[in-house]
């Protein structure tokens, strides 16, 4: 079987992190984002994975090369000369995707969830239609394109309503699909949207079904959602009683949902959690308080620092009694000096912050 991951461009929404590392390699829950997807696809029996990208940095090629061996999959890059939208990449990668008649998994690289590919495949094969959209329930459907089902045939999609004013349903397109290879015939070789051009044709043919996604779902393309997504992911791990989570019996763990790499060092009198990820080789000093945050690898968090709703980029240093909050994002190798307060600062790599940042702003 085959899978296509829509990676796209420079991941500018996740800057300043993506100034140092391509978005698919940014660690989510201490694992590169794309690895979550590669793992899940491999586990579902996928052998060929195509990455649809606008640019192909060396570091990404090298990383995925290593996954090929580890997970026994072939990974190819399909590089777009110009952005081809969400459907164009399928056409571009036709050669690989049509090499046999097995269905194709398509997923947006920004989406995190439990990736129920096996159940999805069963569902797809059972209904016999050409394509299946994974649907997730949302609280405010008025902000999205909402799926409306056929009254007679279960799960058959009747139409989409863009940003409905009146309630027509609360299921939206989760950005994951299973397609039969025949769907590629509906796509022209030009920039085109799968949501707005391809799916309506399938709806017309009564060939498009939706599959309800169990569990959490989040588009983690920007820092705020990256943090929310991290909370959902950690909660899901906790629900599964994952051994990866740091046990609540540790004296510094507060409220659970804490994922700490075994190579990280935690000082005494710390209070960490809930919803915290701490990466490899991070050194956390004494009396540090961290909640709802992600600390990427090789960082140093000094004594008595206070961190909430913050992403601390690789190799950064947070000073003693510093306080970070309000979706602050430190890029790679940033230093926050002792006692400094940063609220919602987006700090570009290699900066040193020595004065308070009271209001959300970009620090060049």
């Amino acid at each position, binding site marked *: 079987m085959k899978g296509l991951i829509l990676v796209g461009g420079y991941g500018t929404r996740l800057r300043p992190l993506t100034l140092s590392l391509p978005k698919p390699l940014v660690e989510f829950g201490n694992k590169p984002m794309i690895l979550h997807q590669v793992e899940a696809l491999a586990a579902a029996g996928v052998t060929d994975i195509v990455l649809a990208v606008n640019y192909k940095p060396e570091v990404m090629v090298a990383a995925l090369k290593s996954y090929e061996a580890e997970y026994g999959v072939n990974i190819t890059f399909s590089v777009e000369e110009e952005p081809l939208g969400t459907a164009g990449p399928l056409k571009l990668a036709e050669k690989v995707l049509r090499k046999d008649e097995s269905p194709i998994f398509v997923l947006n690289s920004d989406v995190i969830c439990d990736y129920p590919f096996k159940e999805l495949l069963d569902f797809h094969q059972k209904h016999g239609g050409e394509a299946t959209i994974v649907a997730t329930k949302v609280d405010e459907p008025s902000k999205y394109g909402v799926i409306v089902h056929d009254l007679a045939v279960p799960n058959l999609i009747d139409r989409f309503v863009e940003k409905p004013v009146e309630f027509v349903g609360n299921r939206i397109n989760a950005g994951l699909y299973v397609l039969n290879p025949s769907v590629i015939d509906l796509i022209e070789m030009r920039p085109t949207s799968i949501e707005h051009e391809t799916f309506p044709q399938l709806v017309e043919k009564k060939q498009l079904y939706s599959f309800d996604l169990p569990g959490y779902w989040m588009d983690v393309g920007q820092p705020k959602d990256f943090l929310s997504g991290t909370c959902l992911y950690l909660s899901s791990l906790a629900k599964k009683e994952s051994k990866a989570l740091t046990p609540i019996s540790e004296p510094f763990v507060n409220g659970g949902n804490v994922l700490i790499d075994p190579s990280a060092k935690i000082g005494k*009198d710390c209070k960490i959690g809930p919803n915290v990820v701490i990466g490899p080789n991070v050194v956390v000093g*004494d009396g540090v308080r961290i909640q709802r945050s992600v600390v990427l690898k090789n960082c140093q968090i000094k004594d*008595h620092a206070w961190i909430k709703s913050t992403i601390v980029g690789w190799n950064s240093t947070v000073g*003693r009694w510093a306080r970070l909050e309000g979706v602050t994002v430190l890029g790679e190798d940033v230093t926050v000096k002792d006692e400094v307060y940063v609220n919602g600062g987006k700090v570009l790599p290699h900066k040193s912050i020595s004065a308070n940042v009271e209001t959300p702003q970009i620090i060049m």
Partner: protein
Amino acid sequence: MSSKAIIMVGGDTRGTRFRPLSLDIAKVLFPIAGKPILSHIIDSVLLVPTVTEILLIGFYEASTFSDFIHDYQVKFRFQKRKISIKYLREFKALGTAGGLYHFREEILRGNPINFFVIHGDIVCSYPLVDIYNFYESKQNFEKVDAVIFGVKIQDYNLFLALNGPEFSSSGANFGTIVSDNHGKVVHYVEKPESKISNVINGGIYMFNERLFRRLSNAKISKISIANDVAHPEFVDEDVISLEEDILKDLPESSTTYVYEYKGFWKQVKTPSGALFANELYLDKVYQSRHRQIFSNDENKSNSASSSSGEDEEGVVILAKPSANIVPPVYIHPSCAIADDVKIGPYVSIGENVTIEKGARISNSIILPNTEIHAHSIVLNSIISYGCKVKEWCRIEGTGVNLATLNEIVRKGPKALGKLKSAVTAQQQVIGVRDTGNICILGSNTVVSDDCYVLNSFILPNKTIKHDVKYEIIM
């Protein structure tokens, strides 16, 4: 041959600019380096051997000072020297000299040959002995009516920035003194609009009994103005201003000298002024090398007065610098300070304060019986009595402290302008003048775990459960 000292202590119907701290404590009793401003003054007065009586004049309730006066009376009882202390309450606010006139008989009882008049909100090194000697030395040549304590300003821009009001550009809001090269005052102007001299009135004077003739004259002219139906404004005949009604005329009608002083000086009008005064005072004690004695030095440990953290002359004994103490810092000997803390510079901590492990305190005043719990940080703030700052809190004024101010002044008018607009911005947000970008917790404030209080004033007895930024919490 006896002298008296009269200290003008003000009252709580005035001095609203010291709120919210004035809800907890009379301004003159506010501790600078752990000791009330009034005690600093009285202890300096006591160094002048001829003083036989100290009179506090103000319009607070008598109970405000009863404990304070009682403590001094007990102290005096054990001294050989005969000296008394008394509080005289004005029936209403009488201005800076109305009280002197009203209590003239009390003051002149026992025929003192001269007397100090001292404003109770001045913090400086109070060179009262030097002023007295200066007066005496001039007295050898001619009869001197008055000596004004003149503060010679070294850095005018810095002085303006320090002493506002609100960084006014049109000259300082102080009396200005012009003297000849013998120190004889030739001209006195109250609050001039332009800069005419580097010497300003420091709020301490020495007078002889002839002051009362001038006060009588001032009173008579007040009454005639007050009764003049043609006068456009209401004039209260009881109120006499020392500056407007007396000092202005001194150069022409008397022999007045100025004692020029070059040390630190700060009038405490607002809480941020108190923070500055604390900084200046601690700095002074730390800089004067011959006084470099620290509370845990062994040769001092058996001193009788070390339990209150002062030496024999009433100068506070600073905490010894260490890995945890960045000098200058004053910590009352009764405090419980954890090992793993960082305190200083410019911190004063009063009696029975608890500082838990991992706490950080800089440029702040902590009043008695307060607790700062683990890992919390306090910057540029005043924390009143009996407060509880719980774990991992941040209490912060973004701080106009002396170091930043000095740097700003050095950078020139542009940087000063920036500072002004930052301070003005806070004033507009929280609607208080002279905020100085500091944080104040009123007495018995509780700040819950993880909370951040930034540039805000918290009135007494409140519990803070959320972050507070640029607010007044009633």
